[in-house]
Structure formats: C-alpha cells, structure tokens
C-alpha cells in the first residue's frame, strides 16, 4: 500500500493554489518592468494563460500518474496514497481536525475528471481579456477546492474544502459572467451556504457521537447515541448534497448560475461541482449510515424519478441553448440518485459512472454552446438555423455531444445509464420504468434542439460565421470526444475502479439488509440490487 510516503496528494491539491499565487504575482500591464518576472515574453493575458495551462497540465499529469499507478487488486480497496497528520486538536471539547488525504476507487476517477476539465476550462478561456490574471488565479483555486473535496478523509477537512469553493465561484460568476450575474452568483452562494449549514450540524453530530471526524473511523463507530437520531443526521447532510447535485426541488439555482456564468465556469460547474453532491452521498451517507440509506432507498428512488422526469420536461420547454443544457443536467443527475437507491454494486458503480460520463458529456456540451455563442452572440434557439452548414466541425461535435447526452450506445453516457438501470430495475421496478421515460424525453429534447438550431436551410445571417480554427478550440473538443468514446467502448477502465470503490459500500448495505430480513449477518456478495 502506498501509505504515507511522498505526499503526492498534498502536492496535487495545493499545486493549483501555488500556481494561482504565482499568476497573481505576475507583473501587470501597468507595471511593465519587473526585476524577475518582467523578462517573460508576451503581455499580461498571455503570461497568465500560459502559466495557468502549465499548472493545469501538471496536475493532470499527476492525476494520470496516480490513475496508472493505482493498485487495482482486491487489496486496493482501502485508501491509497494516504497523507495524514493531526492538524488541529482541542482535547477539552473533542474537536480534532485531521489533515488527511487519500484516494480509493471511488474518488480517483473523479480526481482525474477534475484535473482534465480544469485543463479544458483553461483552454476554452483562452480569449479572456478582462482581468486575466485574477480570472486564471481563481480558476486554479477552484481546482484546489474541488480536488480537496474528492480526496479529504476527515469530515471537517472535507467541509473546509466544500466551503472554500464558494469564493472563487462567486467571483467568477459575478465578474466574468453575463446577464443577471450578480443575482445568480448570490443565489448560488446562499443556496450552497444554507445546504452546508445543515451539513455541518450533521457532521458535528457524527463527530460528537464517534469522538472522531475521520471518515475511516466513523464508519466503524456507533452513531446511535448521537444527539440527533441517525435518520436526522442523514437527512441534514443529504440536504447539502441534494442542493449540490441538484435534486428537484433544490435545483433552481442551477439554471441561473449556468446561464450567467462564463463558458469555462459552466464546464467546471456541470462537470465537477455537481459531482461533489453525488460523491458525498456515496462516500459519506451510504458508507457511514448504510442502515438509513437502505431504509431511504425507495424515497430516494422517487426523488430521483421526479428529478429525471421534471428535469426532462422542463428542458423541452427551454428556448435558451445554455439553459437547456443546464436543465438537462438536472434530469441526468437524477440517474445518479436512482443508481444509489439500488443499493447494489451495479447500481452504485453505475451512479459513479454517471458522474464521470455526465461530467465529460455536459462539459463538452457547454464547450460547444460557448463556441457557438462566441460566434453567433445569441443563445436563443429560435434565432439559430442551419448552423451546421456554416460551422461543419462545431456542428458535428455538437451533434456528437448531443447524441452522447441522449445515451447513444458505445458512448460513455449509455454505459452509465444502462448500468444504473440494470442495478435499479430489480429493486425499484416502477420507478426505473418511469425513469426510462426520461431517456425517451432526453432523446426528444436533444434531437429536437439539434434539428432546430443546427439543421435546416442555410440562413444568410450566419454566412459570416467561422468554424473552429484555433488549436485551443480543437484540443478540448478532441480530448473530450476521445474520452467519451474511450469510456463507451472500454468502460472497464474506470468501471473496475468504481466497482472496487463501491464494493465496501455495497457490502455494508448487504450486511444491514441481511440483518433486517432474517437476522443473519452473512455478507452475500451481491451483483445488482436484487433480493433483500
């Protein structure tokens, strides 16, 4: 086991912050001569983006290294690359924060996704010329926060990174956004803070009962004598994750944040920030409180179906291309919840797979919407017609992304959804059947919008439009398309990791259910959510 050796995860998490500080220290236009850094070529914006790209690629490199080096054998189920020391200790009140990083099969693919999408975000922001230094610095700090959430092994440490993400997002949306950006940024912050308020109370309750905040120890602890019933703790923490995921009816911040955020921030928001909610449900709720999770299974399935169907129905009615993609996220993230509610390895790893697949696909969709908007300066679907004639490459990739989003076989989204359905059907037949309607609706809204905006006769208004031609436009498209195809034809690449990571969760759930039904605690190795 690679425990407590070189602190590679600390390096991974804090490298972007170091990069952000470096970017902030770069000389600005107003101070042309600078002893050391002034010798760098280019202007302020060029230096900032090249440095940001360098840092993003470096952290992508580290993530890839971890991904390759990770121990995939059965013994690799525990956390690897752990990096731990006691950071804060107040014995009198039992308040301990452990500086603890580690990855397992569940978190590693999400770490890789985060660093990949941050790189994409830097590239797609290549033409940002408003306060570029600050922009790239905040983008990198955001990466630190998200990586910290995915790798923390201590509840309070996790909470610290969870909160840290607010400031960069607030500024990124409200400075570099469009439309009613101040309102949207504030709405995002307030929704998240209210969610995390409940989460913190839940964490404190768990910590007080278990007298530790270490996730690895809390799952062994007995939470029965916490000051809140376990069901209440579960519900409190679930609120925060439900806001983030988002689950209807906590979703209304999402379309606003998306429609006013700059393209790169939308990519990060849809691609990784929403995943923090799904990851939290798997890592914290179902790992620590499997008995409540098992009881709540049906309620979660119903919430999931409401999200899927409501999200899809609202998506159909959208007239703004970016809002349409945003609402489709609400629908797609419902599948995550549905997979979780199945309680078996298949459902859980399907849910995790959906996190990655949706991250890649929706990331690509937002990239494409951004590229289209850069050219047409409108996001109104009604104004677009026959765009594929003028921009064949952008049009083709957009259609590819749309097809991936609706679940075309041999692409990543199909694998995730089919796994979720396989896992969920035997446990929740009716909800799963209803969720299938969501897939039909997805095909409907996606094909319809593609037909309206990209197909159809040529429109003279758009004659002047140029197709993608810069390397920083091609690179994100190529990388994301490649990843979507790769995961579609060879899902084992990450499925294997997710099965490794969700097996302990499924075992815990199995144990609980076996105990519920016949009193025996035989841990039956379960494929799918059947039985019980």
């Amino acid at each position, binding site marked *: 086991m690679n425990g407590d050796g070189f602190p590679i995860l600390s390096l991974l998490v804090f490298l972007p912050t170091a990069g952000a500080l470096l970017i902030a220290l770069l000389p600005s236009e107003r101070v042309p001569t600078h002893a050391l850094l002034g010798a760098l070529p280019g202007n302020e914006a060029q230096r900032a983006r090249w440095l940001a790209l360098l840092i993003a690629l470096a952290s992508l490199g580290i993530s890839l290294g971890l991904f390759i080096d990770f121990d995939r054998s059965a013994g690799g189920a525990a956390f690897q690359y752990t990096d731990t020391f006691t*950071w*804060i*200790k*107040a*014995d*009198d*009140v*039992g*308040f301990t*924060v452990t500086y603890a990083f580690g990855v397992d099969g569940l978190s590693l693919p999400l770490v890789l996704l985060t660093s990949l999408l941050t790189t994409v975000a830097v590239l797609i922001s290549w033409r940002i010329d408003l306060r570029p230094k600050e922009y790239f610095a905040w983008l990198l700090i955001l990466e630190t926060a998200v990586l910290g959430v995915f790798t923390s092994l201590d509840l*309070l440490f996790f909470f*610290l*990174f969870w*909160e*840290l993400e*607010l*400031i960069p997002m*607030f*500024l990124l949306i*409200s*400075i570099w956004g469009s439309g009613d950006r*101040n309102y949207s940024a*504030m709405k995002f*912050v*307030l929704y998240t*803070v*209210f969610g995390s*308020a*409940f989460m*913190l*109370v839940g964490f*404190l*309750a768990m*910590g*007080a009962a278990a007298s530790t905040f270490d996730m690895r120890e809390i799952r062994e602890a007995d939470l029965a004598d916490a*000051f*809140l019933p376990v069901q209440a703790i579960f519900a409190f923490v679930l609120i925060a994750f439900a806001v983030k995921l988002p689950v209807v009816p906590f979703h209304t911040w999402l379309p606003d944040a998306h429609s006013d955020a700059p393209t790169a921030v939308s990519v990060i928001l849809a691609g990784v920030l929403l995943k923090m909610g799904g990851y939290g449900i798997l890592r914290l709720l179902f790992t620590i409180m499997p008995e409540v999770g098992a009881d709540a299974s049906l309620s979660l399935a119903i919430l999931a179906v409401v999200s899927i169907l409501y999200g899809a129905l609202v998506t159909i009615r959208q007239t703004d291309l970016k809002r349409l993609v945003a609402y489709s996220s609400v629908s797609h993230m419902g599948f995550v919840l549905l997979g979780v509610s199945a309680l078996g390895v298949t459902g859980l790893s399907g849910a995790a797979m959906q996190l990655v697949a949706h991250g890649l696909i929706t990331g690509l969709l937002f990239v494409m919407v951004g590229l289209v908007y850069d050219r047409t300066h409108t996001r109104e679907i009604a104004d677009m017609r026959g765009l594929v004639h003028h921009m064949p490459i952008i049009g083709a990739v957009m259609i590819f992304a749309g097809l991936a989003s609706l679940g075309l076989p041999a692409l990543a989204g199909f694998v995730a959804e089919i796994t979720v359905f396989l896992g969920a059907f035997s446990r929740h037949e009716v909800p799963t059947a209803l969720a299938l309607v969501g897939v039909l609706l997805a095909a409907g809204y996606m094909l319809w919008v593609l037909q309206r905006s990209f197909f159809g006769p040529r429109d003279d208004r758009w004659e002047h439009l140029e197709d993608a031609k810069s390397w920083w436009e091609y690179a994100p498209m190529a990388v994301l398309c490649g990843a979507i195809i790769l995961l579609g034809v060879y899902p084992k690449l990450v499925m294997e990791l997710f099965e490794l990571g969700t097996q302990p969760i499924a075992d815990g759930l199995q144990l609980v259910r076996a105990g519920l039904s016949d009193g025996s605690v035989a841990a039956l190795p379960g494929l799918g959510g059947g039985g019980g």
Partner: protein
Amino acid sequence: MLGEVNLLGPELVLMTVGGVLLVADLFLRDRRLLMGVAIAALLGSVLYATILLADGKVGGTAFNEILVFDEYALFFQFLLAGGALAAIGASWETLGRIPSRRGEYLALILFSTTGLMLLAGTRDLIGIFVALELTSLSQYVLIGFHKDRLGSEAGLKYLLLGAIASAILLYGMALLIGLSGATNLGAIADFVGGAGPGQFEALIFATVFLIVGFGFKAAIAPFQMWVPDVYQGGPTPIAAYLSVASKAAAFAVLIRVFFEALSDDLLSEHWSTIFAVLATLSMFVGNVIAIQQDNIKRMLAYSSIAQAGTIVIGLAAISADRSELLGASGILFYLAGYTVTNLTAFLVVIAIHNKIGSYAIDDYRGLGRRAPLLALLLAFSLISLTGLPPTAGFFGKLYLFQTAVQSDLAWLAVIGVVNTAIGAAYYLRPIKAMFIDAPAEGAPLPASFRPGAALGVTLALTSAGILVIGLAPSLLIDVAEEAVRTIML
C-alpha cells in the same frame, strides 16, 4: 507587600505613562513622539507581564484576590494590549484632528486598557466594579472626543445608557454581596452551593442583573441599542477598540463570574438557558439589521452584535453533567481570532476613509482596482467574519458550534450555522462593491493609494494574525485551553 505590587506591574506601567502623557499634553504636540510613548508603554506592559511569566509568578494573587495573575488573566492582558496597540496605530489621522489634546487621547486609551486588564485579572466583585468604571469613564470621553454633533450625541448616549447598565450591575452585585456576605468569587461560590429555597430566587435575580450589566459592555442583544450610534459617531479607531478590547474583557469577566461563582448545578441550568436565548437573539438581531446598512461602520457595528451572539454560544455550553466549562476555551479562541479579524476590517475602513472621506459602501466601488492590497485585506477579513476557510473565523465558529453540540445544545449550533448563511449576505456586499461593481461616474477616488506607515504596519500584523490562526489554529487552541484551566469551577 512589594511582591503583591509587583503583580500589578503591567497595569502600573500603563497608569504611570498615562499620567505622564496627561502632563506632557500641556506642552508637547509631536504626534510621532506621543504615539511612540504610548506604544512603548503598551509594549512595556506586555514585557513586564512576560517577565513575570518567565519568573514563575503565574498563579499568584494579591490584595485578597482582588488581583489574580493567572494564565487566564495573562491571555487577556496580551489580547487587550494588542487591541490597544492597533487602536493607537490607527489613530494617526485622528490625532491630526485634535492638535491640542493628543496626550489626553492617548492617556485615556491607556487608562481604559488598564481597566480592561484589571477586569480580566480580578476575582472580587469590588475589583470588577472599579475596573469597569475606570474603563467606562475613559471610553465615554473618547467616544465624544471630536466634539462634533454626531460624536457628542454618541458620547452622551453611551454615558447615559452605560450609567444605567452600571447601576443595574451594581444592584446585582449588591444582592449577591448581601446574600453571601462576601465579595470574593470563591466565597460566593461556596454560598451559592448551599443556598436555601428563598435565597435561590434572589440569586436568580442577581444573576439576571449581572447578565444585563455585562451584556451591555459585550454588546449582546437586547442591550445593544448604543452600539451603532456610538460606533458611527465616535472616532473610528475607538470604535475598533470598543468592538474588540471592550468586548473581550466583558467576556473575560462573564466567564470568570459565571463559571467561578455561579456554576452551581441548578443555577447554571437557568443562566445557561438565558445565554442560549440571548445568543439566538443577538445573532438574529445583528445579522438581520446589518443587511440593511449602507454605512460600513454601522454594518460593522451590527456585525459585532451578531459576533457577540456567536460568542455567547460558548457561555451557554456547559457539559450535561455540569462538570466542565466546554465553551470557555472556545470563547477565548474565538475572541483572539475575532480581535485580529475585526481590527483588520476597521483598519482598512480607516485607511480608506483617510483617503476618500466616506464610510458609504457605495463609495467602495472600484476600490479593488485603485487600492488592490487594501481591498484584498478587507475582503479577507470579511471572509473571516463570515466564517469561511482558510481563516481564523472559520475555525472559531467550528470550535464554538462543536462545544454547543457537546453540551446538548445542538439547536443552538443549528441557529449559529443558519446565521452564518445570513451573515454571508451582507459580508459579501463590500467585497462585491470593491471587486465587481464599476465605480460611479465622477466618484471622488484618487488614482491609487496606500495607508500611512503606522497604519500599514498595524494592518500587516493583524492580517497576518488572521492567516496564522486560520492555518495553524492548534497553537492558539493549546494556549486557550491552558488559560481556562486556571478558572475554578
């Protein structure tokens, strides 16, 4: 006897230099010299205390425990001296407005600090009252120091309301002394432990009166009406000083009196509930009204009421078996973090006012471009006041909420956390104004500016404090836990 006076050394240094400054006021006007003397006095006082500490004098008492020199008192001596240093460091421009009364101004700050230090270092009701009056009288004068309309109104308001609060406090003390026949907190504790049925009701009255009296100083709702006007009308460095030093000392004495003298099982159950209600009230009153403020000084005033409410959570937090003061170390930790944070916020507000002559949040628009460092520091301190990482405020809140949870006051932690969310709504406003909004047309803004030397150094120290406490809170937690161990339950 001489050994006993020795323990009073840190305070005596301040009183002596204060007296010298008063006399020097007659013929000396040099700002640099006078400020230097006052700063030297505070540093000398800290040095004296450090020598006493190194000399093993900690734990000593003098004058029948009217003076106690324990780790707890020492913690507050350092904290209060720090607050006073920052207030003086920020007073360069204020001194410029009062050419003929500079020595007096500085002497009053030193006198007031002496009173606050004594407040934290006494175990006797008479000592507490004398110390409180010494500090209050100096502060009344300081608030009205500019003799303009707003300042005079603020000074008078502070004086009148303060006098009423003192009277109520004195009434509570008189009840306590009359019942127990003692002024020493330890002796009162012995009496409270064996109080009979009729006496117990009187004790509750006395407790309530004490809470009103000290609550006024700490700016806890519903005894907070003076705060916004006094902060707005008084010289800003003094407002900063009141918001941190005065509040810290008020909590120091609250912990001492309630945990040492009134910690009887039955009685503490009553006041723990009262404090829990006051904490709730303060947080909501402060936060909700702060949202509507357009003047940053008034906003910070309401914020300080809300912060006081957060700290009161620690007073309500006693372990279920009444054997431990769970909240005390949390209060000390929070106070230290709050002191550096709030000072940073006020110092930036002073620096900006020195340049643009306005306290209106709207006039802060575009400051992120004109004075990036100052704007960044203000943003940083507001983030800490909100309670977001990686700052002192984040861990202070976590720590206090944790003590509430440990004391079966989970609902209070929930209210605290909800208030954090409400707080975000107004703490983010100046940040938005500085970094996001475009400056108004024809706004009176200079091209770019820096604070003066004294202000700059003070600001550097306080903002470093926020970061150090935020990144390495363990050091301070150890000190705070050590300090509260000397409080006898």
